[in-house]
């Protein structure tokens, strides 16, 4: 199959709709956090109507020359009436300042949240911001016989993100949603190599922390006829595009929905050198289980890996971490887990810490600070026990579990405290 994007000309993806993006086959990591084994693409599109021409997104700045060459092969700059910015991240807006100079008459359409980002983006150019129009769901732009309709889909994966739907053709310009870092000049999903891994990997690292927003977006997207999904990275999905929407729904749907529908879930992670922190964990779990409506899971960090634990953490309502203190710190397996959570949303979950110690016992406070830093709420002070917990101290662990369960189920008794008494 001949590759569609081997020349510097635009590639027609539908009558009057062209891809004018750029290929970056040698990129090996993206935004530091993502590996890109065969590079990526920056997809930009041109839609021609009877009375107007729209450019949807641009490319990374270093690929601007290619973008402009492709753009010039299908449109004159003075024809461009509309610039749509689905996402302001520099890999999609890098050529925007130059495009604004070449097509100063064009009106810019973006989401409300994108306005501040546009100003920040154009700051180094010293240019006044162009005429821009904030849009939201069901706002439209008429290109003459062709209509662009906007879908407000924030946090996929920035606050500013939106999708743009070409009504008459059923083409969804989805921004980063349904995209992936996969570079293949054949462009279309029915012609490129096997990109399944890249599609799933991209979701897992970019969209997964925002899965609630993914589900909101799918609810807006699904009712529309979908002839094609044209994302901002990776293959253009013209063969069975709805399969990719279904896959996103599967990936974004909470997996414990059926098993723990009416219960809150508490996962207790611990690691223990001499069994003391383990005994604390077991007592805490037993205390939490006594309160109805809470399903408790107990895991020894020594017996698993961060990736698996991340999956558990994503689904949990509450998390408790137990660690001994070794050389004034919590132990590495705890930090390994607590530094692996950027791919899931933990904001607002209940957090707690506990642990046995021999000398100074810093681990509990350090873990609590980390949990707060990750935006968990930590309403119950953690429990530090010197060396071997006795019967009374194990009762205190059970009581900690009881309190955590009450917080999870909204059955906490009202307390009145003075700020001076708080640590």
């Amino acid at each position, binding site marked *: 199959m001949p590759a569609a994007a081997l020349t510097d000309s635009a590639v027609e993806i539908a009558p009057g709709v062209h891809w004018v993006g750029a290929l970056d086959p040698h990129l090996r990591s993206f935004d530091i956090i993502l590996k890109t084994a065969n590079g990526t693409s920056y997809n930009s599109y041109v839609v021609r109507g009877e009375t107007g021409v729209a450019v949807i997104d641009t490319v990374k700045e270093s690929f601007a020359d290619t973008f402009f060459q492709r753009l010039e092969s299908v449109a004159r700059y003075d024809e461009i009436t509309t610039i749509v910015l689905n996402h302001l991240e520099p890999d999609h807006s890098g050529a925007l300042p130059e495009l604004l100079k070449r097509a100063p008459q064009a009106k810019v359409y973006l989401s*409300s949240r994108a306005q501040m980002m546009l100003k920040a983006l154009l700051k180094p150019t010293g240019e006044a911001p162009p005429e821009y129009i904030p849009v939201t769901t069901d706002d439209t732009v008429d290109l003459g016989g062709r209509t662009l309709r906007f879908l407000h889909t924030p946090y996929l994966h920035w606050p500013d993100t939106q999708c743009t739907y070409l009504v008459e053709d059923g083409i969804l310009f989805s921004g980063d949603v349904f995209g992936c870092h996969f570079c293949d000049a054949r462009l279309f999903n029915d012609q490129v190599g096997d990109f399944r891994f890249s599609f799933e990997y991209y979701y897992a690292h970019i969209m997964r922390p925002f899965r609630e927003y993914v589900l909101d977006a799918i609810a807006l997207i699904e009712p529309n006829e979908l002839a094609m999904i044209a994302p901002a990275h990776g293959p253009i999905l013209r063969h069975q595009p709805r399969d990719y929407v279904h896959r996103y729904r599967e990936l974004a749907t909470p997996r414990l929905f059926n098993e723990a529908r009416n219960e809150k879930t508490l996962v207790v992670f611990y690691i223990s050198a001499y069994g003391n922190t383990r005994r604390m964990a077991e007592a805490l779990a037993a205390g939490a289980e006594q309160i109805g409506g809470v399903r408790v899971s107990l895991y020894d960090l020594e017996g698993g890996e961060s990736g698996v634990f991340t999956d558990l953490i994503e689904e949990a309502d509450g998390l408790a971490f137990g660690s001994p203190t070794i050389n004034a710190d919590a132990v590495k397996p705890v930090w390994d887990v607590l530094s692996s959570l950027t791919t899931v949303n933990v904001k607002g979950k209940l957090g707690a810490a506990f642990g046995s110690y021999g000398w100074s016992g810093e681990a509990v406070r350090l873990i609590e600070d980390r949990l707060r830093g990750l935006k968990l*709420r930590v*309403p*119950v002070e953690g429990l530090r026990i010197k060396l071997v917990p006795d019967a009374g101290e194990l009762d205190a662990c059970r009581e900690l579990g009881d309190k955590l369960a009450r917080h999870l189920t909204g059955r906490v008794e009202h307390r009145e*405290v003075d*700020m001076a008494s*708080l640590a």
Partner: protein
Amino acid sequence: MPKAKVTFEDIGVSVTVPAGTRLIEVSEKVGAGITYGCREGECCTCLTKIVSGGENLAPPSILEDQVLKDNMAPRNHRLACQAQIIGGEIVVKPA
């Protein structure tokens, strides 16, 4: 020093605080569900619903007001990292 009382509805805790305290200083200490990002009034992460007693908070600064508008915050919402308690009773919960 004049005192005020802040109730965090989501965790059922009322805290007596000195006038002049910012919500962030109290909510973090009691483990309320208000979460923080920049802590400088820019990111809007700590948007908080003022259930009652909003008049007992110092009015928003120009910066806070702008950030609330930019983020389309509903009425009776404040940034916990900016809102300063001046007295009386206030009830809040995460937005």
